[in-house]
């Protein structure tokens, strides 16, 4: 019961402070894994992002359900999902009554002028944690001290190829992320990552 309450509270906080949709919940989830190491690891979180991106539904909601399920089963998933949505419902039901004043309010506009770059900085920092576990082998490097051990060359090559395919190649860059996720899974199995 205490675990469920903590889950609800953590996701309520995420729903209240995550601004900018989708990936904006990510920094909060990393913060959660740091404070509750028994819930899930950063590597597991990266896997949950992949599943959330490849399943129907808004990413933020999918991640909440997944993290909740992973931590405390079906009930955990339910509690986390409702916790994430609760502040939205409260805030929107208030804002909806004063929509015009809200949208033209100079303070709201000014606050969001500061919040948008904040969201970018937070997501980039969370992304860096994924990079650390996906592309580098910090543990192997610390054990051997050899610089070559720091880099996961197979992973770096795949990352470079994906970067080109998602940004530069006209034919592939408009494709849905699920295509790249499935292809990466296949590459991972074929070349035993």
């Amino acid at each position: 019961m205490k675990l469920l309450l903590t889950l609800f509270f953590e996701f309520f906080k995420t729903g209240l402070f995550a601004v900018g949709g989708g990936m904006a919940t990510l920094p909060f989830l990393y913060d959660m894994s740091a404070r509750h190491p028994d819930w899930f690891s950063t590597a597991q979180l990266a896997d949950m992002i992949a599943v959330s991106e490849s399943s129907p539904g808004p990413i933020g909601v999918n991640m909440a359900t997944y993290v909740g399920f992973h931590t405390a089963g079906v009930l955990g998933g339910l509690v986390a999902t409702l916790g994430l949505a609760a502040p939205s419902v409260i805030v929107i039901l208030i804002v909806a009554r004063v929509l015009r004043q809200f949208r033209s309010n100079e303070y709201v506009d000014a606050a969001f002028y500061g919040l948008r770059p904040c969201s970018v900085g937070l997501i980039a920092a969370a992304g860096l944690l994924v990079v650390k576990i996906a592309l580098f082998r910090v543990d192997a490097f610390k054990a051997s001290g050899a610089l070559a051990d720091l880099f996961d060359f197979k992973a770096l090559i795949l990352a470079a190829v994906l970067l080109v395919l998602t940004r530069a190649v006209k034919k592939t860059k408009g494709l849905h992320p699920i295509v790249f996720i499935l292809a990466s899974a296949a590459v991972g199995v074929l070349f035993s990552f």
Partner: protein
Amino acid sequence: MILLKLFAAFARVGVLTFGGGYAMIPMLEREIVDRHGWATSEELMDYYAVGQCTPGVIAVNTATFIGYKTAGNIGGVVATLGVLFPSFVIISVIAGVLQNFADIPAVKSAFAGIRVCVCVLIFNSVLKLWKGAVKDKAALALCLLVFVLSVFFQISPVVFVLFCAAAGILFTKLGVRGK
């Protein structure tokens, strides 16, 4: 009856939206504007805009908004539950299945490959957000400050969010915005 329709309409939007955010707009158009006539396209864009500039997941915010406009407070709650429902069911099933296969070597390799892809996807979405968010020097300074501090220190994102909202207001008042 209207509540049932709201729930079903938003459950459909939830099922058909991959990734959330902008991907949701065409589905909303079809369900809300074309099929049920609950809002016009212009109103829909207004609701969506508000959904973006309030805290929380944009899809949830938009659902609450349209539900409220259509059937009051209870409508807002029902529409939100509708958009959450498919995610909850689908993810619970996938998570339950994956938990049983997580220790198979092939599955581990597949996820190691997928993690690389997740890096690239996050990088791409950061670049996309960057274009809309960092348009002047003050915004650049805020973004870099948040990035550096959260990489090197264990600080709750809540602190940054509150700080940056205040900084946004301060910068606007001081007139450094847009320079």
